Structure formats: C-alpha cells, structure tokens
C-alpha cells in the first residue's frame, strides 16, 4: 500500500514536468529561421508546427510538442517516467549532465513514451527528444522504448517511433550498444504478431539509432531535410577522401536510394499516419 502511494506520487510528478517544459525553454519573442533568415514571431511559429512559413525549414520539436501536434487532445498517457539513469561506467560528470537535461526538458530521459489516440485510433508511441543529451540512447532510453513496444504488442495496437538521436550514448559504453539489440528483439516479436510499426525519422537520426529500430519500420517515413545516416559525414570524408554531395544523408537522399517509403511534410504527418493506421485495420479501411 505504501508502495502504491509511492507510484502515484511519481505519476503526478511525471505530468508536471511536461507542463513545465513549455515555459522553461528560454525562447525569445521572435525566432529566426537558420535556413532563409526569415523572422517569425515564436508564438506564430508554434501554431505552424515549427515549420518556417517562407522556406519550409522544419525546426526541431520537443517530445511534448510532437505529442501535442499529433495525438487527440487529452488521450496521451505517458509511461515509465520514473525510470532513472545510473552511471554504470562511472563516467565523470555524467550524472550531473543527465540531471541538467532532465531539468531543462522536463523529461526523465531522451524519450517520451506512452499510449494515446491519433484520429481516434489507439497507438503506442515513443518520441525521442534531441534536446536531451542529443537524443542519445542509453539503458533508460532502450528500456522505455522496449516497454512501449511490449505494451503495443500486448494491446495489439500499432507502434510509432519518432527518432531524433545522435546514436548510442557513449557514457554507458557497450550497455548502450546492447539497447540496439534489446529494442530489436521486442520489435521482432511485435512484427511476428502481425502488428504494425511505423518509423518516423526526424532531425537527426544517426548512428546506433539509425542502425536499429529507426530503419526497420513496416513503413519508414521521414521529415523533409532530416539528417539520417549511419556514419558521420566527417568520418566518411576522412575515410574516402571524396567530396560528398550536398544532400548526402538527407531524407531526400535516402528516398532516392530506396531507404524510405516517403518524405512527409510536418503539416501532412498526422493525416498520413491516420491513413496508414486505418489501412491496417481490417474491415475499417473504408470508414
């Protein structure tokens, strides 16, 4: 019973930070587009799903902004906000860095997971947040994604993962590497049960995240111009010593090389996801 109380407290705490995250991110009244230098009132940009109205540049979203932009209002219930990162390799300053980003983002780690509805359809969802340690995947990120996938399998509902990650988290060493396998075995089981998994790659999806769950959706989508790739551009340039094309490792580059099903503008994303989910619901496709 004491334990139940404890869990409740934690759940309440988990909701609060989300509200906090909006007010805490220090943003000016105006935001300048890094691509075309257009200046837009920050509030207006938010209404435009953080897409530049002049050049369609997609600004990074926080995990909470993503949820708000996609899910039916009031349906999202987050999971596993109580999991806490440890410092298994005893890396200097690691704990403090994680703590600082937790305060900055209102998240317990670099991914927000849960269940909710998109256009009336129940889904499980994991949204990575690049504002938290570059969205890198350590034990907690791997565990949260795995639990979300297992939840989707258990409930027989589609799984959606929004990737935004620099890859595996260095400070947890080989434990981070193994999260690639952990999430993969869970996704395999989800797939073996005949269930849908949609991967949506956003800026950036690289390294160990690109080389695990992000690339193996039944349907792989990406946002325009998103950086997606396995090895870093600099590493490749040093290895092959050839000039890489301007659009190398962008969503459009991947689409052209057969690695993606579609590149979807953020404004069209909810509709696209809703249609895909409907087309995977037997007998209800016509509705």
């Amino acid at each position, binding site marked *: 019973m004491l334990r139940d109380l404890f869990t409740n407290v934690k759940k309440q705490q988990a909701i609060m930070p989300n509200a906090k995250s909006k007010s805490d991110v220090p943003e000016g009244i105006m935001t300048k587009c890094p691509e075309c230098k257009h200046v837009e009132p920050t509030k207006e940009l938010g209404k435009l799903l953080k897409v530049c109205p002049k050049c369609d540049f997609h600004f990074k979203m926080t995990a909470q902004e993503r949820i708000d932009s996609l899910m039916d209002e009031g349906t999202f219930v987050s999971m596993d906000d*109580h*999991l*806490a*990162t*440890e410092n*298994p*390799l005893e*890396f200097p300053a690691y704990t403090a860095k994680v703590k600082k980003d937790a305060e900055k983002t209102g998240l317990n780690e670099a991914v927000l997971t849960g269940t909710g509805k998109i256009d009336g359809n129940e889904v499980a969802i994991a949204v990575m947040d690049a504002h938290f340690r570059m969205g890198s995947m350590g*034990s*907690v990120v*791997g*565990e949260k994604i*795995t639990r979300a996938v297992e939840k989707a399998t258990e409930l027989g509902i589609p799984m959606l993962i929004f990737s935004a990650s620099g890859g*595996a988290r*260095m*400070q*947890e*060493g*080989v*434990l*981070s*590497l*193994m*999260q*690639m*396998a*952990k999430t*993969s*075995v*869970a*996704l*395999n*089981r989800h*797939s*073996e049960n005949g269930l849908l998994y949609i991967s949506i790659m956003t800026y950036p999806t690289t*390294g*160990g995240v*690109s*080389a*695990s*769950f*992000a*690339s*193996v959706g039944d349907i792989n989508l990406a946002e325009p111009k998103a950086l*997606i*790739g*396995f*090895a*870093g551009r600099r*590493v*490749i340039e040093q*290895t*092959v010593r*050839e000039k*890489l094309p301007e659009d*190398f*490792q962008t969503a459009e580059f991947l689409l052209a*090389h*057969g*690695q993606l099903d579609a590149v979807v503008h953020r404004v069209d994303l909810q509709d696209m996801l809703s249609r895909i989910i409907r087309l995977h619901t037997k007998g209800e496709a016509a509705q």
Partner: protein
Amino acid sequence: MKKTMSFEEPIIKLREKIQELKEFTETNEVDLSDEIRNLNDRLIKLENDIYGNMETWERVQVARHPERPTTYDYIGELFEDFIELHGDRAFGDDAAIVGGIGSFDGEPVTIIGHQRGKDTKENVKRTFGMPHPEGYRKALRLMKQAEKFGRPIICMIDTKGAYPGRAAEERGQSEAIARNLVEMASLTVPVISIVIGEGGSGGALALGVANRIYMLEHSTYSVISPEGAASILWKDSAYSKEAAEAMKITAPDLLKMDIIDEIIPEVLGGGHRDPKQQAKNMRTVLTNALSELSKLDADGLVQDRYDKFRKIGVFSE
C-alpha cells in the same frame, strides 16, 4: 618472428639473452646450463607476470595483433568439409564477411564471420574487415538458409565496425545492420557468437544477436573504438588508452556486466602464439554450448534469445 608489442619487450629481451647464452655454450666449451635454467625459470615467471596481468590497452594491442588468428584460421581448425558460400543475391559479394557450411563434430553447421586481411593487399580487398551492407545481407541470407535446414549458426565477430563510406550509406548500411538485429531475434536454430578480435559497434552486433555470446580472453567489445571515444569525449584521439580503460571493453568487463556468457581462455600472450591450441579452447566451449542449446525447441531458442537481451541495461526504478 612475431611482431612484438611494446609491453612484451622485457620478455623478448630475456628470450634473446637466453638464446645468446645457448649459442655461446655451443661455440665455446663452457657449461652455462645452470644459468640458462635460472633464466628460463625467470622467463616463465616474467611471462606469467606480464601476460597474466594485461591492462586494457595491452589487450587492445593483442586483439589488433596483425598475426592474430582470423575467422578463416579458426574455420580451418574447427570445421570439416567447409564450403564457402558467396554473395547477397542483390548487389555483390563482400569479402569483409565470409560464410559457408561445414561440419562440427560430424554435425552440419553454418559459419559466418568478419574477415580481416593479413597483409595490406588482402586488407584492401576485405576493407580491413569492415563490411558494407551486402556483407550483412549475405550473412542474413546464410542464416535464413541455416534455419531452413535446421543447422546451428556459429558467428565470429572481428571488426572495427561497419565501413564508413559513401557507397555503404547509399546502399543502406543502417538498414542492413538493423535488419540483422531484428531477423536474428526470431531464428529458430541455435545461434552462437564468439568475439575473436575487436567487436566494434553496430557492425559487430549485426552478427551478435545470439543465444550464447563468448569472448576470447583478450578480445574487446565496445560501442565505439577507443580512438573514436577519445575524440568525442576528450576531443583528442591521443587519449585512446584512457578511453579504452573508461569504456570497459574487455572480456572480464563484459562478463561482469552480464552481457557475455563466458570468457574463452587464450594461449599465454595471445591466440597468435599458438592458433591450434587456441582453436582447441574454442572447441570445448562450442561443444558444450551446442549440446546445451540442442535441448531447446524452436520456440525455446527464440524465447532464450529474447530473455538474454531483454534484461541488458542498468537503471533504477
């Protein structure tokens, strides 16, 4: 003459001295057998001291030793009737991953491993054991083939990582690795992976979703090379030695983290000093693993692999 590693120098010097004395006794009519015996005793002690207490960076040097036995060497020692099978049936044949069928103690098995070169020419051909997507896709093709015929799969991991290059990205390096992770999860035959040299990052893991994972005593398994870690975390690749320590990449480290099942002991000083004996050490472990796994049915094998990876991670609730 084996290439020497810096930490071996005291051993090499002592060996040279013993050799000198032996030659001296042969050319001159003096009896130095007592001195030689003493020095030999000292040599054994010194070897045990140095080889028996290798630090992380010394193990990295052994794991990277140019004469360290490769997948081909172990295939020759451990399997009969080996037939190499080539190609991914889609793009090409990547020489950085080799595979085929053979028999182990009379039972058919599929063997797949990263393949480094032993000299510059061969290393260029094999891109230094760093595979392209077609290498991983060949591996997956051979795994699916093994599954069809009910053969156990034995993987040998020995790579710095997947090849970082333009062509690799264009052909879907990420997808090729990711696909292997997912597909290996549901294989209905026993899968055993042995890290025989360097196990670098996703490029290594793509042959590593196994029921049993072993590491040779001086092999390493890591999320990034020590050089890569140093340049990211210290902004200077000169700190590779410190990074190797910090990243906890040795076989004892991984055993402690409960990621691998067992350490396969190495010949004193490293497998390259006696590849035949090294293969024998591996044979014992393989025999036991195959016998244990043969007790599990298809569902049991898949569940066993699920449980193995499901529990990896350190966090608090």
